[in-house]
């Protein structure tokens, strides 16, 4: 903790704030009368909505059963021609049983230029938000540190539909731990900076593929 000197900017700013608001009335209370979700409580429809919204923002969406997952992962990597796959700790071994690509592990932690040389990264996620088409990573098991899903150009993300899909932002936040670093991903990196023409992929992975399993 910074110990402020007397008359420091900290004390001055706090004193100025107190002087500025001392006569202000207490503003009205916050009414949280907005919706908790904009969707009917129907898991099948939520899943369709998630798939549609992910695709709308240019993620490539796959759907399969748990039994099909290894083959789907194998096919995606083969079609892309990936030779190396970054695998964070905690990715279930059987997800990889359908592919022979070289696995790259993050220990000891890889330098950024090593991450840059990897073809693809495979992760799970913390949860997915249907209304916004968002995947949330929180550096939990099977996700790795943030740089792993940032530097490689191809991110393959598996969502367990049984317990990882929520309808809305208000439903997502209570399930997340603020002390963990989080990245919310809604489609691949994009820019509209030149004449408002949308271009997918600037600095993050230019291809985001999401597999909805279950």
């Amino acid at each position: 903790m910074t110990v402020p000197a007397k008359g420091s900017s900290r004390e001055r700013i706090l004193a100025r704030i107190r002087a500025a608001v001392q006569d202000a009335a207490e503003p009205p209370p916050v009414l949280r009368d907005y919706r908790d979700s904009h969707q009917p409580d129907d898991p099948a429809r939520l899943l369709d909505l998630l798939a549609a919204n992910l695709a709308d923002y240019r993620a490539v969406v796959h759907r399969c059963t748990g039994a099909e997952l290894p083959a789907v992962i194998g096919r995606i990597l083969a079609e892309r021609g990936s030779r190396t796959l970054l695998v964070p700790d905690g990715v279930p071994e059987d997800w990889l049983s359908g592919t022979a690509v070289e696995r790259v592990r993050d220990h000891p932690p890889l330098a950024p230029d090593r991450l840059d040389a990897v073809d693809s990264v495979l992760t799970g996620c913390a949860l997915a938000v249907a209304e916004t088409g968002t995947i949330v990573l929180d550096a939990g098991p099977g996700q790795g540190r943030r740089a792993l899903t940032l530097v490689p150009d191809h991110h393959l993300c598996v969502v367990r539909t049984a317990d990882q899909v929520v309808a809305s932002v208000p439903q997502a936040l209570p399930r997340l731990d603020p002390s963990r670093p989080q990245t919310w991903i809604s489609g691949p990196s994009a820019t509209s900076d030149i004449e408002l023409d949308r271009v997918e992929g600037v600095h993050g992975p230019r291809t985001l593929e999401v597999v909805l399993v279950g």
Partner: protein
Amino acid sequence: MSDTYLGMPSFPQAKASTRDTRLRANLTHATRTIRDKRARAVAELDDWAQLREAGKRIKDRTLRHLDDHLVQLEQNVTAAGGTVHWAADAAEANRIVADLVKATGEREVVKVKSMATQEIELNEALAAEGITAYETDLAELIVQLGEDRPSHILVPAIHRNRGEVRDIFAAKMGEWGRPAPEGLGDSPAELAEAARLHLREKFLRAKVGISGANFMVAETGTLVVVESEGNGRMCLTLPETLISVVGIEKVLPTWRDLEVFLQLLPRSSTAERMNPYTSFWTGTSDGDGPRNFHLVLLDNGRTDTLADEVGRQALRCIRCSACLNVCPVYERAGGHAYGSVYPGPIGAILTPQLRGTASAVDASLPFASTLCGACYEVCPVAIDIPEVLVHLREQVVERDGPGHRTERAVVRAGSWLLDHPAALGAVERWASRTRGLHPRRLPTAVARAWTDSRDLPELPEAPFRDWWRKSR
């Protein structure tokens, strides 16, 4: 207020930029496109009005107890391994950041677009200390390489078209690092690829990153950055040291409050259900991201703004830029005309408050508006911009008295409009469509500065131009 510096070229810059028909065409295209998309994104949520009211109230309650929330934020950032610094003005913030960078022994930093660091002209201050700051947002890169100024909060290079961007990249990238590829074309995809290659080498070797933040959560010590391109993630994740410069008004009390603002901001700003990337971090994390995190809390005129009963609502602003895209004056005049890093309607009320109206230029800002009310309607935190404008006009006049400097400020704003026929046409058109919203009288002495009578001119019977000429 004398220490508050917002980095402002003088108002006459407007003349050159407005006469540029290409700029006007680009801006018109941009503002209309975003406006229509935004309306659709907002219409998807049938509880938008409730979200907007909640956003407004959360901000108002936060500002009322801003001291408590900042102290709590400081405690939680510190407990999570960060270091908190307090900067009363731009000079102090720049000094803190420069010293932190120097302490790392580095001479280069990568930066993610931030209004606060533009406001304090951090890049220039670092350059004076021999430190090079690389802007990494595509639009900011275009602005930086083109030795230019941003013209829009959200799309700062909207005044450049693809051919110009290609020329800037081809000519300038080599001076800053990896040159543009041979035979670079002008498709946005090719230009984005050139930026990716140019910046990647900088990201991969960067040791110090500098950012702002969209939100800070007091109860958890969490900072949030909302972005599209991934350059933010690069700057927030890869360097060993991260320095975030954030205005004190960006704090929110609770984690839950984000459920309101993460719905309001993306839809209102880029017209998306959610922007591609949002990063959250709380202090430092073992083995993930920067080992050192510094938060610089910036006042720079915000406490002055907070002291103004009417004007303090400007501190609710979440910088979505929706008010720019609906403003008839902005659409015709362009962002450079406002002469500060905050253009458009929000700039017209924020700049004079942050910096005061001591200069004739700043005193004229509250007058460069039509009071049509479109900015208020679209604002996701319900800032009544016309109300603040009228209030600031009153202040200018009350302090200086009618005539003299005030008159000059009004004349200045008025002649600025007359110099820009397209802007004036828009003003007239909007004014006639929104007659019901105009006060028949401007409060107190302001009106005397505009006309001899205290009545506002009838619109549109007395065309503005004629009325103006007669009344001079």
